[in-house]
């Protein structure tokens, strides 16, 4: 199968959906003529023209508000917010408008849109351009929240997000843009709300998302090779809807749970899943469920410091080993 980058998968995913449906339109800052600051939208302007691929001012509220108004009235907009940290300047749409309009109107108002954004650390950009904000979105009722870890998932989940009738927050990891993966030819459409067992195992369940997935897989390989511990690694992929069936089934088999999160410690998706498992599968657990997270601090800029704070394969190995051998 041909290999493409995660970045090119974004382009291909958007192009696939725009080619299929004229109602799909795309807007954001520097996304059109310039092809995006991460070069993840190069060529779309040329392919779909200035009416469907549009540069905007630095007006994040206008971007998301316009996307919503268009979605309510018949289009299927994809809006880019350049860095997920900037959700904070347009959070009203994410927290109060998109997710509540259908409910408040007793089902009258629709909101089929996708917000794409560059999420996560690793680029030495410092505290205001490196955050993992998936929990900012997961905590809001009425959204759907997706974070792919591989090129093929980027295309499939993006297609599913665009075709979904609800507002979907689509978190692309900045440190994955340059990574490669195999992608089949032809149309790819995945399903929201499905986790993926990326490495089966019997001794412990490790849940991970986005950039943490390859690290969890690496840790699992080392745990097996070096310590004989056989971990099941699950790529959560979709925080809302959440595939609790796959997660609970895995814990029922392995009896141990570890979550690997990039977002800071408090109130992350790890806490949510640990709480679900502790409540619903308490008697399946042979030991404490453990969260591996970034510490609850702002992110430092310096490479040497940034590399210390994000969960690493090393830290996953150590945490799982110590927990299982204690």
């Amino acid at each position: 199968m041909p290999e493409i980058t995660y970045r090119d998968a974004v382009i291909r995913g958007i192009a696939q959906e725009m080619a299929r449906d004229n109602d799909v339109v795309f807007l954001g800052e520097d996304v059109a003529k310039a092809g995006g600051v991460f070069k993840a939208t190069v060529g779309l302007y040329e392919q779909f023209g200035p009416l469907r691929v549009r540069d905007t001012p630095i007006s994040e509220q206008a971007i998301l508000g316009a996307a919503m108004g268009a979605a309510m009235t018949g289009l299927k907009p994809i809006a880019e917010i350049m860095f997920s940290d900037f959700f904070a300047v347009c959070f009203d749409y994410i927290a109060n408008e998109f997710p509540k309009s259908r409910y408040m109107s007793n089902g009258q108002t629709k909101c089929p849109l996708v917000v794409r954004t560059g999420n996560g650390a690793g680029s030495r950009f410092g505290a205001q351009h490196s955050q993992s904000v998936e929990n900012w979105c997961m905590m809001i009722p009425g959204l759907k929240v997706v974070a792919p870890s591989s090129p093929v998932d980027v295309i499939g989940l993006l297609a599913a997000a665009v075709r979904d009738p609800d507002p979907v927050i689509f978190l692309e990891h900045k440190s994955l843009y340059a990574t490669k993966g195999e992608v089949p030819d032809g149309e790819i459409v995945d399903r929201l709300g499905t986790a993926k067992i990326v490495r089966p195992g019997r001794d412990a369940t490790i849940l991970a998302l986005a950039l943490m997935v390859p690290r969890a897989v690496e840790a699992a390989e080392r745990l097996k090779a070096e310590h004989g511990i056989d971990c099941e690694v699950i790529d959560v992929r979709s925080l809302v809807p959440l595939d609790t069936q796959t997660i609970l089934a895995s814990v029922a088999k392995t009896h141990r749970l570890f979550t690997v999160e990039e977002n800071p410690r408090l109130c992350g998706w790890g806490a949510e899943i640990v709480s679900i498992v502790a409540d619903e599968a308490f008697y399946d657990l042979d030991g404490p469920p453990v969260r591996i997270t970034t510490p609850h601090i702002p992110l430092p800029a310096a490479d040497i410091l940034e590399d210390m704070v994000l969960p690493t394969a090393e830290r996953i190995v150590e945490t799982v080993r110590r927990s299982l051998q204690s």
Partner: protein
Amino acid sequence: MATAQDRAQAPGSGLNDDIGEAKRLAMYRSQLRIREAEQRAYDLFLQNLVKGTSHLSLGQEAVASGFAEAMQKGDLSFCTYRGHAHTLARCVSVEKVLGELMQRDNGLMRGKGGSMHLTSEEHGVMGSYAIIGAHLPIACGAAWRAQYKGDKDVSVCFFGDGTTNIGAFHEALNFAAIWKLPVVFVCENNLYMEYTPIGDVTAVPHPAADRAGSYGLERIIIDGNDADVVYRTAQRAFSRARAGEGPSLIEALTYRHSGHSRADPAKYRPEGELEKWKQRDPIKIYRERLQQFGVSDKVIAEIDASVRQEVDDATETCKAAPMPPADILTTDVYADGGWAWRN
């Protein structure tokens, strides 16, 4: 407040006859319907039958009726929490509005949204928004859809003077201007942001109009208590929008007779202010206008009676209506009709 000069700038003096009797009767009925329904909402609040908060448009009816009368089917209204008037003006039934305020199952959204979120998409009422400024960008988006599809409908976005000081106002105006969107922004300047005089918190005398230049737009200030003036202004803005000439920003001078929200006695008003504005009550102005144009007292009385009948009937129906049932609590969070965030 409108200077003599501002008034002179308003399109149409209200005396020539480009509007015609049918429209005028409709605008009279529309304004009266709002007046009576809002007054009833207030009475029902005093009886503890309207719950939650509510923000009445008593005194501001001419803006709602004038704009609604100029709108065509397909044109879209975006309102604030002070949205009963605009909802009624698009011909949503009094029953559905009062039902929502009374949080009954017959309400427009069966009690799920409440007074601040009236929505009736079938009437073009695309929601009432309770976070100041939020709907201005949303109205841009709806206008973008019309532009993209080549449709001729216009998005009309109503908001208050206080709303001109929040960031979303600025972003939306610039965005609409550069994309030449068919959207009309209507600032109902009623002199107050809640309890604070707008002049105390705004760097320019006319909070909307004095900012039009920032977006390359014309400075438009009108008498918002004269439905004819409002109607003509709306028509002009809509024509521009439909012709692809882009957005308009209109500042309509008006005044609310009631407090900001249901519990506000409005003690912050300077003495005599309310009385002065009541002399320019839009209903009074318009009843006189009809008389000037030779409409008989009998015709007026018939309208008055039929409006009162509708409001009375709606009140009784709502009082008898059941409360919303428990099973709607978790419906319509997602498009599949449910709320499942997990499998």
